Every structure is written in structure tokens, then in C-alpha cells.
């Protein structure tokens, strides 16, 4: 079996890259993501103005363990796309939500939400849909539990960028997204709430948009230029199949409500390879890496990346090797 697992047929050569197509894909990704990012910034602004920090703390469970389960549960109930989540999660952290809880929610919402499960069922309607839904949900849940219990052991200053650290955004503008943006209110304005809301939305939107642009560029480059047939020869391989699924998810950077349709049509991949693709992609990929960098320190994002992918690989490998 071991030798069979490494018996690799030859792969076709890459077709090269079309730079105009990269521009088209990049433009499509930013146009699709920007409205959701703006929506996230608006919700973040409303939270800033109308939701006192004490109220959020009262809602949260006292124990960290319960907080992780609550965050995963919230991810199940409140569908939130990856782009829209970033400003909201940063705002919640600044409002006093423990970073581990907010981060677990950020990781859970795209992959576990009902829309992602429904799209998985539809995409695999002729390929054992319930098995795919159960495996995607179950493996995602287990990986999120593993990540959540790792996150609660971390210090906030290890996880967060200086500008995301808890504190008053208005008192310390240098500790906010887009730190170079100086907002000086006009004197004599009686629209304090509107002013605060506008400042919050602009700061959050432009702050995270920068990382969306960088992430979209990486996603466009690989989703357009990477020849998917290169992974086809290992897609059925017991060990390399799940790795190929994870790698493809990192390069294609698809939304969690779309990814199932793409991978369902990818005949060369085995079920474990497809599940690895569906579990790993919503947790982190090349685009999300840059979006996460808008709030978190690079060393933390690297550690998160490694753990998320390793846990996904181990689970799908166990499934792949089952008798």
C-alpha cells in the first residue's frame, strides 16, 4: 500500500499564464469582496456607536471552554463571509471580546454556516451528498475545536497586531486599522454619533481593504495561472490526495459557498481529497492569510496556518487510510 501511495503517473505541463486573465480575476474578486467588506465595516461602526463594551461582556460565557463552544455555535447560526467578518471581529476584540473567542468565531462562520452546508449538498447531489455534508461538518467542527482550545492558551499580545489590541480607538488612533489615517473632527459639529460612525466605517473599510487587495492579487494569480491538472495524478492517492486537496484550496481561494461546486466537478480527486479541500479552504488560504494579517501578527497567522492545515490533513488522512 505504501508504494502504491507514491506511484505517481506523469502530469501534463503547465499552460502558462495569461496576465490579462489575472487582471480580470483580480478585478472580479475585489468587486465581489468590497461590498461585503463595506457591510462588515458598517456593522462594525454600528457596534462601535451603539453597543457598550459591558453589554457584550455580559453576554459572553465566563469560562474559556464555554466561550469556544459559543463561538463555534455562533458560526453555525450567523452566516458571515470571510471578507465581511474581518472588520466585525476586530471591532468585537476592541470592545472586549476575548481574542480567542472572536477568532474562533471568525474561523467557524465561513465553513460551518448553513449556506456552506446547503451548497455542499447541492453540489454533491449525485455523489453521496449526505456523506459529504457530514464529513465536511464533522471534520470542520473537530479542527475548530482543536484550534479553539489552542487559541485560549495564547496571550492577546502574541496574537494581535498592536493596532488591534483592546482600547479606545478614538483616544489612540495609532492603535487602529489604517494607523496613518488621521481623523480630525470639525469643531462645532453636533452630530457626534454620526461622526463617530463615519470615522469607524472609513477606518475599518480602508484598513482591511488594503489586505483584500493584496490577497485578491495572490488569489487571482494562482486561480488563473496554476494548472489544476498538475494535481490530478495524485488526487486518488491515499496520502498525497488529501495534501493535494489542501494545496488546491490554498491556491484557488474560493468562497465557502462556492467551493463545493468547483471541487464536486473535479473528477480526479478522491473523497478524502475533496473533503480536505472543503475543510481547509474556509479556514485559511492565500487570500485569507492577507486578510488575517490586517488584525493579527504574522507569527500568529503562520502558526494558525500550520495547525489548521496539519489538523485537516491528519483527519482526512485517517479517513483515507480507514479499512
Amino acid at each position, binding site marked *: 500500500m505504501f508504494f502504491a501511495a507514491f506511484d505517481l503517473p506523469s502530469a501534463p505541463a503547465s499552460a502558462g499564464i495569461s496576465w490579462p486573465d489575472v487582471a480580470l480575476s483580480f478585478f472580479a474578486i475585489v*468587486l465581489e469582496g468590497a461590498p461585503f467588506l463595506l457591510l462588515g465595516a458598517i456593522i462594525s461602526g454600528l457596534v462601535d456607536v451603539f453597543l457598550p463594551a459591558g453589554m457584550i461582556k455580559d453576554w459572553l460565557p465566563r469560562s474559556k471552554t464555554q466561550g469556544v463552544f459559543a463561538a463555534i455555535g455562533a458560526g453555525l447560526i450567523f452566516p458571515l463571509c470571510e471578507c465581511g467578518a474581518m472588520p466585525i471581529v476586530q471591532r468585537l476584540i476592541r470592545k472586549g471580546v476575548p481574542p480567542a473567542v472572536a477568532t474562533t468565531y471568525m474561523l467557524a462562520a465561513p465553513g460551518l454556516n448553513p449556506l456552506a452546508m446547503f451548497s455542499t449538498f447541492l453540489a454533491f447531489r449525485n455523489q453521496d451528498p449526505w456523506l459529504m455534508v457530514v464529513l465536511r461538518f464533522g471534520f470542520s467542527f473537530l479542527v475548530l475545536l482543536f484550534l479553539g482550545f489552542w487559541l485560549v492558551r495564547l496571550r492577546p499580545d502574541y496574537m494581535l497586531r498592536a493596532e488591534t489590541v483592546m482600547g479606545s480607538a478614538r483616544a489612540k488612533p495609532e492603535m487602529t486599522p489604517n494607523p*496613518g489615517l488621521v481623523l480630525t473632527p470639525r469643531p462645532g459639529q453636533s452630530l457626534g454619533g454620526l461622526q463617530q460612525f463615519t470615522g469607524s466605517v*472609513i477606518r475599518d473599510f480602508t484598513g482591511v481593504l488594503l489586505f483584500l487587495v493584496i490577497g485578491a492579487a495572490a488569489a487571482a494569480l494562482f486561480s488563473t495561472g496554476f494548472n489544476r*491538472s498538475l494535481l490530478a495524478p495524485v488526487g486518488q492517492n491515499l496520502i498525497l490526495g488529501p495534501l493535494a486537496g489542501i494545496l488546491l484550496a490554498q491556491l484557488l481561494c474560493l468562497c465557502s459557498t462556492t467551493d463545493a461546486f468547483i471541487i464536486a466537478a473535479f*473528477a480526479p480527486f478522491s473523497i478524502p481529497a475533496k473533503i480536505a479541500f472543503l475543510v481547509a479552504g474556509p479556514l485559511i488560504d492565500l487570500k485569507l492569510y492577507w486578510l488575517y494579517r490586517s488584525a493579527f501578527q504574522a507569527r500568529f497567522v503562520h502558526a494558525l496556518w500550520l495547525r489548521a492545515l496539519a489538523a485537516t490533513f491528519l483527519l482526512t488522512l485517517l479517513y483515507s487510510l480507514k479499512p
Partner: protein
Amino acid sequence: MDRIARQISFFAPAAVMSAWGTVMLRTIATGHINRLLSPMFRNYVLTAALLLFVLSALYVLLYQPDSETAPAPAPTGRLRQFGRWLVLLVPLVAASILSPSALSSTTLTNRSSTAGVAPMPSWNAASQKNAQAALDADPNQPVPVEVTDLITLSRSPDQMKAFEGRKVRTVGLLVNQPENAPKLVRWIMWCCAADAQPASVELGGNVSGNWKEDQWLEVVGAAQFPSTLGHVAPRIEVESIKPTQEPDEPYLSP
């Protein structure tokens, strides 16, 4: 000099947000958005563009340039911030100008799951309805079908048998791949062009002509469903072929 820098710093956020709004509106007005996003996302872009203009106006009304008595930021900090605004502005404007009308055959090769094309998911209810309508149409007239309808028909042995040899009219992009028959391709889009997948039929018979790669063509011919090693790939035996305009919706929806 410092005063000018303060003014530029102040107006930059409004200018960048307005530029994004303008690019979004222009993309909608020119119809280029049809080549980028599926219909469900287009209204979101319009709403976002309008909101960005409102935010820009509110920003200018509610905020003011940093006072001259305030300490000036370090030149490196100001340069870095200026660089951030440029990163937000330049790639977007460049992509809006440089993005082509359709994905090329190079990307088609990269996005195909095998040496050929990705199969159309058989969950497509609309395509199954179209396929049935094609079966019920007048057999003496060319039936207007999409590439995906032929692929859907090829998944059902009964429908395939009933449709074999029927004259069809279909539209798509011409792709010539070395060592393969020419193909007529349509892209299927789920959310945006970045996730678009190609679907194609082979062209046989008289396909001669001075056709360019990735050119939109209208083909009339007989539908065939040859099988190789159990895999059925739809094919059109071409009777006539002519250039045509890009459809209003260049992508097919799943």
C-alpha cells in the same frame, strides 16, 4: 509644503473611496460587470458604490485637515500612508482598464480538470429543462441550445439516443488546442470570474475559416455523442459557422 501635505492627507480617503465608487459605477454602466460577477452580486456592487460616495461626502463634511499647530507626522509615516492609498487605487484602476472581455484559452487549459474540460454538474435543473425543451422542439429546424445543454443530454443515455443527429444552433468561444479537435467553449460562473469553469463541445466537419482564438462564433450542425472508453463527449458535426456578437451574458449560470 507641510500645508499641502496635510491637505493631500486629508482628501486622500475621500478621493480613494470616490474612485472605487466611480470604477464600480463605470463597470456597471458599460456592462463589463456581466463579465466579472454573477447577477446576484451586481446590485451589491451598485449599493456599495453609492454608499462609498455618501461616506466620502460625510467624511469631508464632518472632518477637517489636521490643524497646523498639531505635530507633523514623520516623513516616513506620511510616505507609508501615501503608499497605502496608492495600493488601494492603482491596482483597481489598472485592472478595470486592462481586464479583457473573456478568459483566454490559456486559462481554460489551466482550469480544466483533465486534458479536456470539467464536466457540467448534473444538478443543473435549468439545463435539464433546456435539454428536454430541445428534445421536444421541431426536428426539422435547428434547435437553439447551449453547450451545457448538450453536456446535460450526454449524461442521460435515453435523451442522448433520442437527440443523436439533431440539428442544433449554438454560440461559444472558439478554442484550438494542439493535438485536439477545435472546441466551442462557454464559461460557467458561480460567483465571479475567478471561479469560472469551462464547458465545451468538440467541433467536427467543416470548421475551416479565418477564425481567431477566443472568437465568438455561432455554429449550426448535427449533435453527436461519441463515446471513448465509456466517457461520452458531445460533438457538433458543423454545417455552417459564422462570427457573432458576444452574448449579453457571456457566462452561463450553473
